[in-house]
């Protein structure tokens, strides 16, 4: 019955330990040393420390202190650090958080740095991914790794249902799902769309041409014909019994269930390539494949996710901080990150590596990355996406019709965006 989440205690203690360690390290540094502070999240935070010796070798007298944040607490810690004016020089930021930190004036514009850089060639980056780092026309981040969602599917079960290839459009997809459901029977399903994740529906919604917010991101645009078409398609999958109306908490082990054929399609991201290879039962190794996300009529777009390097506007070593970003953005550094974590590189040149180019599961991602779209760039977006998930959940359970869900969603989005409209009217924000 403790009001504080018990889960938050452990990372905090670890965080404190790291903090003390870095303080102790700071004390022993020579007075002439420049100390750059770098914060990174989760596994990337562990791996990045191993990439830094090369930077310190070429920059004598510079030390980089890395602090690792757990993903679950990263957002809170970054906001708290901002409020306490202790943001590090360089930090990793999920690219959907960039609008929020730009609204806080916490980030340094990077156009001037990137414009004259030898190492960071912006044309080499996937367009949709780079776009997430621009607010207005200003660049605030340099993509570090990418994340998008596409199809993971059981090739054997799809073949059993009479199809040799992955579906490319929604009508084809619905046909395949229906056929798979027919072959697997009453107790198994064709696809898993966890009701507690907004990403699958969001990816499908981004494929349409109508934007999700309208009038300069000041109002919701969910009553557009395009979004209602997406929601109908999504809900229809459940209505026809092709997907179980479950959340992730009900699926105790996604890999086991996928291995057992409880579902044949799953929309997920690059980290699951490694997980599927490691965790699937041996008899289905090689029986699965990845495929780009089908669109309304032909291959569709998906979410431009991932993390970027950003520079704190309060940093006192901006030139050095940029050199660190440049160093970590080199294609070979991105390949090293891929080798250690499976994170996919955002630069086309980094993909020319033999290991990555030869990975059959990564191929669909390479293809998909040319078709990724940013989500609306407002600080309130994540909250609106959560409302979208809740409305879709209602529609799936049959409580709301498609039109009711869309109307309700617009009303909620408009309410969430109220402060933004007020600030725009005052000329205080873009």
């Amino acid at each position: 019955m403790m009001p504080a989440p018990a889960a938050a205690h452990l990372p905090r203690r670890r965080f404190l330990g790291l903090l003390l360690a870095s303080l102790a390290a700071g004390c022993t540094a020579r007075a002439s040393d420049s100390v750059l502070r770098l914060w990174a999240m989760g596994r990337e935070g562990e791996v990045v420390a191993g990439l830094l010796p090369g930077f310190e070798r070429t920059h004598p007298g510079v030390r980089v202190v890395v602090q690792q944040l757990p993903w679950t607490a990263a957002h809170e810690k970054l906001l708290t650090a901002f409020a306490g004016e202790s943001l590090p020089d360089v930090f990793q930021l999920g690219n959907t958080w960039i609008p929020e930190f730009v609204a806080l004036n916490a980030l340094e514009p990077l156009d001037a740095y990137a414009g004259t850089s030898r190492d960071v060639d912006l044309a080499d980056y996937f367009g949709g991914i780079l776009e997430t780092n621009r607010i207005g026309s200003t660049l605030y981040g340099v993509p570090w790794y990418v994340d998008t969602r596409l199809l993971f599917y059981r090739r054997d079960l799809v073949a059993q249902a009479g199809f040799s290839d992955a579906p490319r459009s929604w009508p084809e997809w619905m046909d395949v799902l229906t056929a798979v459901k027919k072959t697997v029977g009453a107790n198994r399903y064709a696809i898993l769309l966890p009701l507690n994740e907004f990403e699958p529906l969001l990816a499908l919604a981004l494929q349409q041409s109508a934007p999700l917010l309208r009038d300069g991101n000041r109002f919701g645009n969910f009553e557009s014909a395009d979004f209602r078409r997406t929601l109908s398609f999504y809900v229809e999958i459940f209505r026809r019994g092709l997907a179980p109306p479950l959340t992730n908490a009900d699926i105790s082990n996604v890999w086991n269930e996928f291995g057992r054929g409880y579902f044949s399609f799953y929309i997920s991201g690059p980290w699951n390539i490694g997980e599927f290879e490691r965790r699937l039962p041996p008899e289905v190794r090689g029986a699965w494949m990845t495929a780009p996300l089908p669109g309304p009529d032909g291959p569709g777009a998906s979410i431009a996710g991932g993390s970027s390097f950003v520079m704190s506007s309060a940093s006192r070593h901006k030139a050095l901080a940029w050199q660190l970003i440049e160093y970590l953005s080199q294609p070979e550094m991105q390949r090293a990150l891929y080798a250690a974590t499976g994170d996919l590189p955002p630069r086309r040149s980094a993909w020319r590596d033999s290991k990555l180019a030869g990975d059959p599961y990564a191929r669909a991602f390479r293809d998909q990355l040319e078709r990724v779209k940013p989500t609306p760039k407002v600080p309130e977006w994540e909250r609106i996406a959560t409302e979208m998930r809740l409305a879709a959940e209602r529609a799936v359970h049959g409580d709301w019709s498609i039109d009711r869900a869309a109307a309700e969603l617009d009303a909620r989005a408009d309410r969430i965006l109220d402060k933004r409209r007020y600030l725009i009217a005052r000329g205080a924000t873009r």
Partner: protein
Amino acid sequence: MRRLQAWWFVAPALAVICVFFFLPVAAALVLSLTDFDIYALADLGNLRFVGLRNYLDLVATPLFWKAVLNTLYFVIVGVPLSLCVSLACALLLNARAARFRGFFRTALFAPVVTTLVAVAVIWRYLYNTRYGLLNYALGFAGIDPIDWLGDPRFAMPAIILFAVWKNFGYNMVILFAGLQTIREELYEAARIDGATYVKQLRYITLPMLAPVLALVSILTVAGYFQLFAEPYVMTQGGPLQSTMSVLYLMYEEGFKWWNLGTASAVAFVLFLFIFAVTVLELRLARQRFPA
């Protein structure tokens, strides 16, 4: 002079209460009258004083009322259930026929000291629709599998069951201590008069235990109103927000969406609610047991 000395003695405690209780409450009250959000964090010039709008918005939000109803559901079902289980276990432990008393006392208290997050993982397996032990057992009784955590009708009962299991040991220990203070002669006299076990329970145990029961129920009600950790680790407030509690709503508003104004308003409403209920309970208890 005496009075002044007395004040000096309580001064440290009062100072602590002021700094850690009255000040935050006052700050929360002020914050709840503004629309503090990340824009205000960027620049305090973006902060608007909105008067009672947060409260009015809250009252007009269906989710808030849903959270209130969910919390009341949890308290009204959970507290009596929890007290009954605690009392039953305390009586069993106190029974003269009980063997290995120390062992059972420790075993029954164990859930209280285990980590909630760790046991939640196990309970999620117990509740699993297809492989869960609970549905397996129900299968023998011919009951179809229940989607405990995925069905909006069953999620709250599942949370209540989990919370009661996690917390009953604490009250059990207090009630057990209370039971041991009841003098054996009373039972002897009753037995000589031919009172059955049920009558002894009704006319000796419960009346003698009443002050302890009152204390325990007040603590439990106040604790159960602050439902948060169980849905946080088990269901994240879902499915269909059927396990969204008032405190969970506050957490989401404040720490997920950074709407500290709204979150403070929620916290304040919850505070007043618990305060009112506790005062009511204390008054009732005082009427019954003037001592």
